[in-house]
């Protein structure tokens, strides 16, 4: 047996003129919990569909558990437990009927099937809803049924497409815990666009954007890319006072840069990055008190992975694969920049999240200490 669970070589998938995947190669070792990260339409799901033999790549190939997807797709599928995006289940069936069906499809009968069903029901804590129809279940329970069906044949590889999307925080926490637990015994690939998720659950992260692999890191490496933690300080200030706030913040020793990040109103939010490793919060508090500024909020925000994500996934988008939405975004950004440049004295704030980088950049130029 090899130590490599997945070996993807030059995977390319074209849908007509659109390249959904463009020459993606990666390896996953046994026992890894791999996070597949990327914006919607980046190619995460396409990659998973190729690995599970639902679709075939236009070029390239992959080996799962040492078996080529083109040579013996049945063996590949036997080695995989798969949960597709949005958990498609036969909702008219009861949980017990459904798991029974899956067990039969996986080739288990009688006592063996019963034992396996009992085991996955135990693993995924489905006992309470065992006799209920799937359509009557909450999203969290459905997700667990989806995971249970993927576990029945105790596959060495689990592929979960957005297992946590659409769940409320409690359900998400439960499912995350389950995945972490499952990841101890087997290889897991999960896709998500939640960055915090990746950090807590995964041992490695692949970031994919516009069909291309843009990063292959451990969460720690990713965190390093993200840079130091930031302090977010919120002030109640208007007009001329804003300038004062900025000056005071920029004047605090140890502050490397000040960025205005909020969306307007009477509250102004600033993100501060430290030069060293000091906690800036006490200094911000004292500076605000000394200068009689209305400091109403102060918090240290974790590594700003969102920025790294944005940088990686929006930077060098190939022209061919670009969607209209990203086109619009691209064209609106320089425009925003222009207006910001034209009126540097004003504190322009943006309404939508997408436009923030342009604004932040502007404030950055203006006020870097």
């Amino acid at each position: 047996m090899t130590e490599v669970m997945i070996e993807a070589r030059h995977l390319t998938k074209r849908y007509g003129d659109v390249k959904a995947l463009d020459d993606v190669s990666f390896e996953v070792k046994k026992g890894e919990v791999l996070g597949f990260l990327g914006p919607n339409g980046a190619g995460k799901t396409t990659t998973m569909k190729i690995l599970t033999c639902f679709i075939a790549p236009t070029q390239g190939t992959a080996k799962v558990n040492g078996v080529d997807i083109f040579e013996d797709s049945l063996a590949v599928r036997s080695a995989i437990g798969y949960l597709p995006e949005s958990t498609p289940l036969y909702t008219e069936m009861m949980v017990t009927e459904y798991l029974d069906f899956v067990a039969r499809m996986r080739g288990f009968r009688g006592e063996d099937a019963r034992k396996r069903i009992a085991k996955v029901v135990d693993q995924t804590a489905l006992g309470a809803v065992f006799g209920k129809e799937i359509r009557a279940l909450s999203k969290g329970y459905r997700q667990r049924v989806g995971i249970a069906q993927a576990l029945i044949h105790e596959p060495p590889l689990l592929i979960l497409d957005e297992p946590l999307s659409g769940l409320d925080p409690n359900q998400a926490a439960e499912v995350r815990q389950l995945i972490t637990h499952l990841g101890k015994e087997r290889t897991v690939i999960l896709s998500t666009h939640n960055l915090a998720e990746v950090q807590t659950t995964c041992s490695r992260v692949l970031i994919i954007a516009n069909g291309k692999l843009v990063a292959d890191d451990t969460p720690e490496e990713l965190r390093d890319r993200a840079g130091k933690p930031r302090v977010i300080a919120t002030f109640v200030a208007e007009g001329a006072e804003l300038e004062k706030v900025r000056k005071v913040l920029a004047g605090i020793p140890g502050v490397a840069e000040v960025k205005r990040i909020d969306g307007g109103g009477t509250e102004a939010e600033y993100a501060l990055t430290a030069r060293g490793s000091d906690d800036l919060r006490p200094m911000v508090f004292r500076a605000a008190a000394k200068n009689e500024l209305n400091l109403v909020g102060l918090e240290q925000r974790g590594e700003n992975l969102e920025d790294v994500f944005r940088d990686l996934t929006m930077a060098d988008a190939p022209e061919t694969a670009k969607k209209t939405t990203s086109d619009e975004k691209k064209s609106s950004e320089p425009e925003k920049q222009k207006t910001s440049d034209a009126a540097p004295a004003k504190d322009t704030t943006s309404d939508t999240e997408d436009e923030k980088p342009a604004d932040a950049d502007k404030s950055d130029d203006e006020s870097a200490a």
Partner: protein
Amino acid sequence: MSNTSTIAGRQFRSYFNGAAAYIVISIVMLALGILFWKTFFLYGKSTTREMFRWLSLILVFAAPAISMGLLAEEKRTGTIELLITMPVKDSEVILGKYIGVMGLYVVLLLLTLPYPFSVSSLGHLDWGTVISGYVGLFLWGGAMLAIGLMASSFTDNQLVAFFIGLAINFSLWLIGPMLQLLPAEFASIFQWLSFDFHFERMQRGVIAVRDVIYFLSIVAIGLSVAFRSLESRRWS
């Protein structure tokens, strides 16, 4: 083979887990009841010929209705992805689905059995024609359901699948009544294509090999096109 029967079993049960089977069965039985008994006593003959005639026409509509969801619904909800990523061959999926819907069809046919029995209680009934009529109806229905499954493989919209199936079934049915209007030189070809032409003999009590082959070839064509269509997802 065991995958095929598992899929067939699930498909068959799913009809009865929801309202679909009951609705279709009720409508078919109601329509048949009205159409059959309305004229039965006017003719004053103890024959089930009219029953087979009406039932075959009703099935032109009912067959697409029970087969439209076979693949289209699985594609719409995405369950097809879970099904196909299990270690199962595409051919097993198609065959399983087909056997599942044929199961419902057989139930429907069994529910019409009271007709010949009540007719025979009213007068002498030639049971030979009843048996050959059922064989014909089974084959005809099988052909229409294969067409329905094929239609269902083309789309993820059940309604579209229904109308594709209906259009094909209706055309093949319509050739019979329209035969006189068609050009004479092609008449024999059209006649051979027509459902009615092959069913006609069976209604009269004759089970000819060529008629059986006709229906079975339609089944084979329908299923293999559905298979190709399902397989094409990998390359599209």
